[in-house]
């Protein structure tokens, strides 16, 4: 690693979605629109007057309130979000934009409406397929959302305003992408956990509030990392891992994976660099562009008939990032990842890729077990 110290703000935003940066933005009259999940285009929620915050529930120790309604046999991410909505920790969210991504998320919204009755709560109807028909459908959903936002918050969601927002968002993504690309170096200039902090923080605060810090970070990283120095022998000593999974938004979790000698160089999950950092088309119909971006770049197992495409994508990324192995993390009680995980493990092993499958809860924990599993995996890989 290069020794570049990560700005403390990134870590603080990971721990506290209602951080002072967020509070300040709201005091300036901007409304926070909480959203989940990756299919919701952030630029639509980042026009002048509002800003997007990816819904998270860090610091959740238990979900006794949410369990009463969602039951304890459901994915712990929506349970944690509902818990925090019920106990007031998400009161800084002025509007909710959700998507019919999976059963637990849909039911979380049902219960949220029943229990908390948020003033603004929109559910986007997301197709389970790719292709022109699905994109046309979803673009129409986004137009509906744009109208609803305009009506509820008095913001300008005209095509011009959306195109401007897309341009700003693309600039933000370009910085993240450049940071991410640096990790292709060996050794990477930053740990997987630090990169994760940057991404999670940028999903939490208004994008413009982080711009100068991100630019500075990119400049210092690029300067410090320099050309690749390691020899082939050295490369063998630091196994490069690609983390695959769903909702991983706690950098400490990645830290544990890295604490036993591996380095996470790429992350194919909802808060990672793959996919999602690709730019959105800036010309033409903005709703159509955002719909196309959401449906064409997604690698979520909720999309039907795209498994082989996902495997091919993952194999390509393994090669591109020089990953030695894959850590597949599936959330307990997630049916989509549960079935996908079984098929994916078989496909990766068939292709000769070492893979460790872990089942986890949203709130993390079990660090000792996790460390042991990863350590054993690295040993099995011959590292």
């Amino acid at each position, binding site marked *: 690693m290069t020794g570049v110290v990560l700005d403390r703000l990134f870590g603080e935003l990971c721990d506290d979605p209602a951080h002072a940066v967020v509070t300040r933005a709201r005091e300036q009259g901007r409304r926070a629109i909480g959203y989940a999940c990756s299919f919701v285009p952030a630029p639509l929620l980042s026009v002048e007057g509002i800003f997007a915050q990816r819904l998270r529930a860090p610091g959740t120790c238990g979900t006794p309130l949410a369990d009463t309604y969602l*039951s304890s046999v459901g994915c712990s991410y929506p349970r944690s979000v509902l818990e925090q909505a019920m106990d007031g920790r998400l009161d800084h969210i002025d509007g909710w934009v959700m998507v019919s991504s999976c*059963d637990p998320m849909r039911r979380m919204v049902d219960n949220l409406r029943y229990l908390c009755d948020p003033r603004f709560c929109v559910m986007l109807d997301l197709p389970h397929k790719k292709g022109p028909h699905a994109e046309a*459908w979803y673009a129409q959903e986004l137009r509906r959302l744009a109208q609803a936002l305009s009506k509820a918050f008095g913001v300008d969601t005209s095509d011009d305003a959306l195109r401007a927002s897309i341009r700003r968002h693309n600039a933000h993504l370009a910085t993240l992408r450049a940071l991410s690309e640096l990790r292709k170096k060996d050794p990477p200039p930053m740990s997987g956990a630090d990169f994760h902090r940057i991404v999670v923080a940028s999903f939490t605060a208004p994008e413009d509030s982080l711009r100068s810090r991100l630019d500075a970070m990119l400049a210092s990283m690029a300067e410090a990392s320099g050309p690749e120095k390691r020899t082939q022998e050295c490369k063998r000593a630091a196994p490069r891992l690609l983390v695959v999974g769903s909702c991983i938004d706690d950098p400490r979790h990645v830290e544990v994976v890295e604490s036993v000698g591996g380095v996470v160089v790429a992350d194919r999950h909802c808060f990672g660099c793959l996919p999602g950092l690709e730019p959105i088309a800036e010309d033409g119909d903005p709703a159509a562009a955002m719909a196309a971006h959401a449906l064409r770049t997604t690698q979520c197992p909720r999309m039907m008939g795209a498994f082989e495409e996902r495997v091919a994508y993952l194999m390509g990324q393994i090669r591109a990032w020089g990953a030695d192995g894959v850590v597949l993390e599936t959330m307990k009680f997630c049916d989509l990842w549960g079935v996908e995980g079984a098929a994916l493990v078989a496909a990766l092993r068939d292709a000769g890729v070492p893979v460790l499958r872990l089942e986890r809860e949203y709130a993390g924990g079990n660090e000792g077990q996790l460390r042991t599993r990863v350590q054993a995996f690295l040993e099995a890989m011959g590292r």
Partner: protein
Amino acid sequence: MMGAAGEVWWAGARDGLVSASCRVRNWATIAHLGASLGPRRLRVALRKHPWLRKLLLVNRLQDRLTQSRCGAYRQANAILVSSIADTLREMLEGVFLHPDLTVVHEDLVPPELLFGMGLRPWMAELLGIVLPMLDPRACEPYIDRAEIEGIPSDLCSLPKATLGIVLQGQMPAPRAVVSSNMPCDGGMAQYTIWERKLKAPLFQLDVPYDFYDERAVEYFAGELRRLVAWLQEHTPGRMDWDRLREVCDERNRAVEAQIELWDMLRVRPAPMAAEPIYLANMVYVVARPGMRRSTEVMRSMARLARENLEQGKGALPVEKHRVALWNPPTMMFLDLFAWAERTWGVSLLMDMITFHRHPFIDTRSEDTMLRDLARIVMQGPMARHTRGPADNFFRDLFHLVDHFGLDMIWMAANVGCKNTQALMGMLREKCRTQGVPLLVIDYDLLDARVESQEGIRSQVDRFMQTVMRQERLS
């Protein structure tokens, strides 16, 4: 004139005769299957698909569903079991004799279009539904197989058992597979493994989240058109719109009989209950719509209900309680209601899988047929409750309470159904607000190792004694 004792004797003899004749019919059905396949093909089929042996238990199933019932109600159950056995024979003959025309379809994708194209539908989840009816433990080895292959143990046991059959290599090989995003994530996701294992082309229909508007009908009718084109490309099937029209007309006739039956159920005591309502629907409206036999069975159920109604008789000797069962029926304990009837006088009148508000299919043009089929698929049993907002789940349920004058709701809380588990808190509160007693049966749909039949009986007993404050009838 026959005395009271004579009438009782004659009723008993008639009941015995009904059972005996259906028993003979069931053996004839099995013999028929063997004869059509021929000894060599039958031997191969038995070796590749050992679950076929479970069909020999059909008379045991018939006994379980008829022995505690009498009169028209018993006759309805006997006819139903025999008809299902014969329908299964037809389907198996299709699979083994015409594999090239066989298309697997997910249980919530009705097969009218396949019939219209001259294809042989095989319902993907059929074995997961039928096998535990015949033998409550029949699916356990398949569930274990799926879990060994890395499928999470918390997945609903219906897709898990179905996957286990596929992974075990015991699923008949189809020409193509048609599924959808219904009814839940697990049900949808399983087809990734189907596709990889069977190496059969797969088409998945995409049902919108919000499906009660014309925009959704338009989108989904488009999906059906794309399905027809895809099937024409991947199978020998060719759409014959006139044949589809006949299928849809036949389906309309069966539904007409079903609605007549439902109307009669509003009377106290209800002239029919349980399996002739829900099992008949499951097989003849959901799995085999549009067949002549489906109409005949539905008409028989309505006719026998009418017979009771005209004599002022209920299906049960003593109807003390009227119940709706929410969520799919307890397949690993199919005779739950046969037991509940004689123990507590509980009459099952409606359930989630059965109740629908489907339109009759308008057969005037290709477009009207596709649009009504789109509505039927999107608003199909269970699918409309597990998709869309929570209101879809509750609206039907409380409508049933009023419409059929129900005393209570039994929620079959399949532990693997995360979708409906996440509505339990709301359901409890809504039932409390509306003053409707709610029994939540904790169990697993197909796996008696999670909760045994005895355990389910205990849950019912405790509810009836402590909440309903009732005494056992027997």
